[in-house]
């Protein structure tokens, strides 16, 4: 929090707001990692394998296959652009931990020319601004200090050779010392980093700025003296020889047997991440690939392309000879809707975060997500804004915190704070519904009010828990219906339930109609699913466990219907009635209709059971899935005003334009009255004097001005928003 804002917050609100926000952020971050865990794991594996393969190649055996192919992982991330930074951030973290410290992350905005791209790539790979764990911040691999003009591939090549030869010498010496490096290398699949524990093997040995005694070096693996860091001669001659006899089968066999530990240790690959491939100028991408493939025999470069659309896009923007140089493998990241569902479930539908969101702002945030950007980052940002508005705009929010904390706060409530609570509309209506005797006590006696508030808050908590559980039940019940009137996702059901009482809604009625016609084979798995959901919650809530028991019994009855069915089927042996005497078509029709009516009159056992089941569920829904503003004290936990956040989240240029013209003061808040008046005059002057296109241009720029001023720092809430990001 910046200084200004700390003063403005009351002390009690001040500590719960950051807490709530931190909880939200940490949850969404954890989710991000876990959701992409699978694809990341595959990616890391791929990069490691690619590194292995190129090691073999560099070590001398020039296999015919893929001499110039650069192994390329094409990570299809989806079109939610704002989230990509975070995705690649966690990928880099993973790679630094487990595979290689040499990573370059290129963004198209830095790479308008080949020169710029090469410079960025090489400087990052050589560790000029490398990605290092914060733990080892003081040990950042700064690399040699080189002038900008010297960043060429030749320099990179010799730098890399030095590193691996330094490592090789270290390897051979450390083997006699019990070889910590080798052990790390063997188990690098399950344990994180084979590099960290052995210190910093990547520092160029002869670098003049390096001190010799590195504190991170755990055991005395003596480094070669400055003078002779490399052993290039043996290396090169081996290379030469193997070109001639690359067919040598024994060598290959040996390497195949032991792919994880090729001779000379495992040299980390150089990973080049291109975050937004589509956005790179085609010629830059083309040249970059050709250059890297040219040096492929010396450098184990691995590309990671971040693709927003489809992997075809890469080939579309490349020419044939460049795309022949990349051997691509596609990895599909999880779609962001999937991620959003988890965020909603873990942040909004839980008691762990005391802040809850009402129907209208939730709908707004969902709409922005689905209609505009599919970006979870923006969703979380919007959520944070809601929290800020909630905590700053509503003085009763000092009670919005975790349950044990709340008990303390209720006990310590001052009369002024009590007054705030008493003035809440929902509390007032609660009081009005009480018998008159209690009313006076509630309004006057401090102790009674406090205890009432305590119980009400606990009730509110448990109500919301029940509410969320039932929302999941509704979703399980209706998501598989044809046309899914309530939506296929939990979030859609949640939005409906938050904005109006579910049972009265049109959508639910439609769903109910279809449920009444559902076959037993369909109903059984759904019911089992619902029981599963209820089971998770039933321990904590009595009403839910009641419902659970009831439904479990019904499931039992449904399962035992098989025997019953046969009994019932036997009885209506009305075939005899079908002896049609009259050949009149009209009579026949009449008769058939009659029969149909008769049939429908007596439902079979399954049908009656089904309607009974539905009735139970509908009754529960009716009782519990009510609007939140019926709950007393809902103002404390729920934020339910979309208009305030909408102003900040949805920019509307045209509306802003009208405001700017009709009331410039609204945007030009600064300045003396005289100043403002002159500006006013100016804008009217513009309106009067210019015509047509020019005028509209000026108006546009005025609108832009407003847009900027609003997004940068006009309102306090937004200032805060920036603080928290």
């Amino acid at each position, binding site marked *: 929090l910046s200084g200004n804002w700390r003063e403005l917050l009351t002390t009690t609100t001040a500590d719960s707001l950051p807490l709530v926000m931190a909880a939200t952020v940490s949850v969404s971050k954890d989710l991000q990692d876990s959701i992409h865990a699978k694809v990341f794991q595959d990616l890391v594996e791929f990069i490691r394998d690619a590194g292995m393969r190129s090691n073999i190649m560099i070590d001398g055996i020039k296999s015919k296959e893929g001499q110039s192919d650069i192994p390329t992982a094409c990570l299809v991330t989806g079109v939610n652009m704002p989230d990509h930074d975070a995705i690649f951030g966690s990928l880099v973290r993973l790679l630094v931990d487990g595979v290689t410290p040499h990573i370059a992350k290129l963004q198209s905005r830095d790479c308008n020319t080949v020169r710029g791209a090469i410079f960025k790539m090489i400087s990052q790979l050589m560790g000029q601004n490398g990605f290092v764990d914060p733990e080892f911040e003081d040990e950042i691999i700064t690399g040699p200090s080189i002038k900008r003009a010297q960043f060429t591939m030749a320099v990179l090549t010799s730098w890399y050779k030095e590193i691996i030869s330094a490592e090789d010498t270290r390897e051979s010496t450390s083997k006699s010392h019990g070889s910590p490096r080798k052990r790390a290398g063997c188990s690098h699949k399950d344990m994180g980093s084979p590099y960290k524990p052995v210190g910093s093997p990547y520092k160029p040995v002869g670098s003049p700025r390096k001190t010799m005694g590195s504190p991170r070096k755990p055991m005395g693996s003596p480094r070669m003296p400055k003078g002779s860091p*490399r052993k290039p001669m043996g290396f090169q001659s081996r290379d030469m020889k193997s070109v001639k006899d690359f067919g040598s089968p024994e060598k290959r066999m040996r390497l195949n047997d032991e792919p994880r530990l090729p001779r000379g240790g495992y040299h980390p690959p150089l990973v080049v991440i291109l975050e937004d491939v589509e956005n790179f100028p085609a010629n830059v991408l083309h040249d970059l690939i050709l250059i890297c493939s040219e040096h492929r025999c010396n450098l184990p470069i691995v590309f990671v392309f971040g693709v927003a659309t489809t992997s075809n896009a890469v080939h579309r923007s490349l020419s044939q000879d460049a795309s022949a140089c990349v051997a691509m493998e596609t990895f599909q990241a999880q779609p962001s809707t999937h991620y959003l569902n988890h965020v909603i479930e873990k942040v909004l539908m839980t008691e762990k975060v005391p802040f809850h969101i009402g129907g209208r702002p939730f709908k707004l945030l969902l709409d922005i997500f689905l209609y505009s*950007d599919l970006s979870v980052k923006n969703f979380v940002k919007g959520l944070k804004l809601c929290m800020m508005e909630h905590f700053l705009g509503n003085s009763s929010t000092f009670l919005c915190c975790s349950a044990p904390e709340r008990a303390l706060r209720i006990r310590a409530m001052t009369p002024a704070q009590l007054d705030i609570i008493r003035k809440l509309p929902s509390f007032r209506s609660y009081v009005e519904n009480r018998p008159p005797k209690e009313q006076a006590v509630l309004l006057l006696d401090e102790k009674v009010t406090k205890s009432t508030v305590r119980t009400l808050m606990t009730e509110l908590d448990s109500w919301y828990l029940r509410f969320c559980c039932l929302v999941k039940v509704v979703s399980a019940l209706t998501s598989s219906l044809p046309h899914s009137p309530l939506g296929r996702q939990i979030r859609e059901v949640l939005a409906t339930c938050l904005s109006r009482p579910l049972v009265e809604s049109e959508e639910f009625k439609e769903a109910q109609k279809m449920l009444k016609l559902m076959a037993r084979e369909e109903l059984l798995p759904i019911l089992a699913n619902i029981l599963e959901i209820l089971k998770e919650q039933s321990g904590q809530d009595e009403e839910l466990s009641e419902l659970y028991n009831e439904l479990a019994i019904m499931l039992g009855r449904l399962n035992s219907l098989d025997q019953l069915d046969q009994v019932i089927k036997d009885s209506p042996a009305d075939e005899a009635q079908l002896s049609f005497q009259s050949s009149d078509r009209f009579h026949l029709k009449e008769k058939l209709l009659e029969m149909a009516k008769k049939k429908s009159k007596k439902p079979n056992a399954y049908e009656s059971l089904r309607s009974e089941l539905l009735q139970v569920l509908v009754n529960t829904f009716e009782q519990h899935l009510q609007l939140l503003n019926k709950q007393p004290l809902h103002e404390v936990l729920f934020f339910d005003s979309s208009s305030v956040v909408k102003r900040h989240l949805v920019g509307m240029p045209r509306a802003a334009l009208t405001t700017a013209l009709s009331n410039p003061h609204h945007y030009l808040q600064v300045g003396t009255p005289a100043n403002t008046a002159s500006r006013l005059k100016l804008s009217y002057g513009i309106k009067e004097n210019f015509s047509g296109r020019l005028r509209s241009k000026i108006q546009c720029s005025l609108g832009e001005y407003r847009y900027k001023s609003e997004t940068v720092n006009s309102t306090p809430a937004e200032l805060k928003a920036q603080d928290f990001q």
Partner: protein
Amino acid sequence: MVSSSMVETVSDLVMEIPCRAPQIKLLASLLGEDECPLPSSIFMYGHSGTGKTLVTTAVLERLGVLTSHVNCIEFYNSRVMYETILNQLSGTVPTSNNNYSSYASCDNLGDFVGHIRNIGSKTKQRMAIVLEHSERLRDCDANILPVLCRLQELTRDVNIVVIFLSTLPIDKFRAATGFLEPIVIHFPQYSEEFYKNYINLVLSVFYLATKGFPELQHQVQLNFKAYCEPVEKGDAEEYDIRRLWRNIEPHLKKAMSSVYLREVSSAQYERMQQLTETAPQDVALVKAGLTSKMELPFYSKFLLIAAYLASYNPARTDKRYFMKHHGKQRNTKAKIKAKERSSSQLVGPKPFPLDRLLAIFYSIVDDKVTPTANVFSQISTLVTLRLVTQVGGDDQLDAPKYKCAVPLDFIRSVARMVSFDIVRYLYDYS
């Protein structure tokens, strides 16, 4: 005079590199032995993957010429080129010991020639500069090409040859002034006789698609296992070409679909093949998932559709498609003829102004959309995704102009997702 050792070297090389005997002989005789004076420049051209680099490096190595082998794509400015060549010729390796500095700092041709002369007088060796992708040199400063052609002349007593490798013929290089015609060696395409049975088969399938040698090599390696399978199992004789062909045919067909793209690396390809054997439907799903799945925000889909409509429909028909009361349409003969004349699907997308895009967008979205900044920002997102491209320069008086860059199939699937009948709105189809 050709010594016996020279003959031996050449015949060795001819054995090692098949099908390139005339080129090897020519090059070797041009370069000559030990102290022979070198030609001032040689130009070799041929399609990519015809063995230019292989032949050049092999011959130079055997003859013991000090070689600097560089790739012109790397040289985004001429300074990098000069310094790399000088480093390689002088044997300077940038290391941490010399703080990654090069042989000399050099950023113009005069210095370059001077440094070459210095090195030459020191080493007294024959030198060669091999420039790969030399067609890129044409984009550099105008004087580079002529100077490189006459490098021997300019450095006087240095015995140096510049070898240009290129995929373009010499005609494309001739400059106006000072161009000295180099000796030209052409590398023709490999002929098909070179390949035997299997190679022959694979070649006949892929030859139409690509002629690059590395590409073909990749495919040959990829499918060889499948080819050998029946022989290993004992189902077929080694020489039973017909049966082997029947076995390999489906594999090749499948590979054909991705030959251009190299979309599958060999590992992934093999995995996919295995999957095919276990569950064919799954693979179809996986494949579909890999290639065509793209999730767009709801309004972006409509914006894209609107962009497509604006690109492929003539502006005068907008009234008919997007207004409620557009009056009656009369099919006159002239109109039908005009329609026949211009099939916009063949001509390609036409540019349209932003206003028109937005107008169509607002009219095709069912519910009411408030014109928010989010809608506008989505247009720029579409541009960065290359689904829509901006046309025209920076100087745009009225409004920016765009073009839609997606094919009909794609837009159809997008429209199906939002249940919008796009064909009904397309001028060509209605």
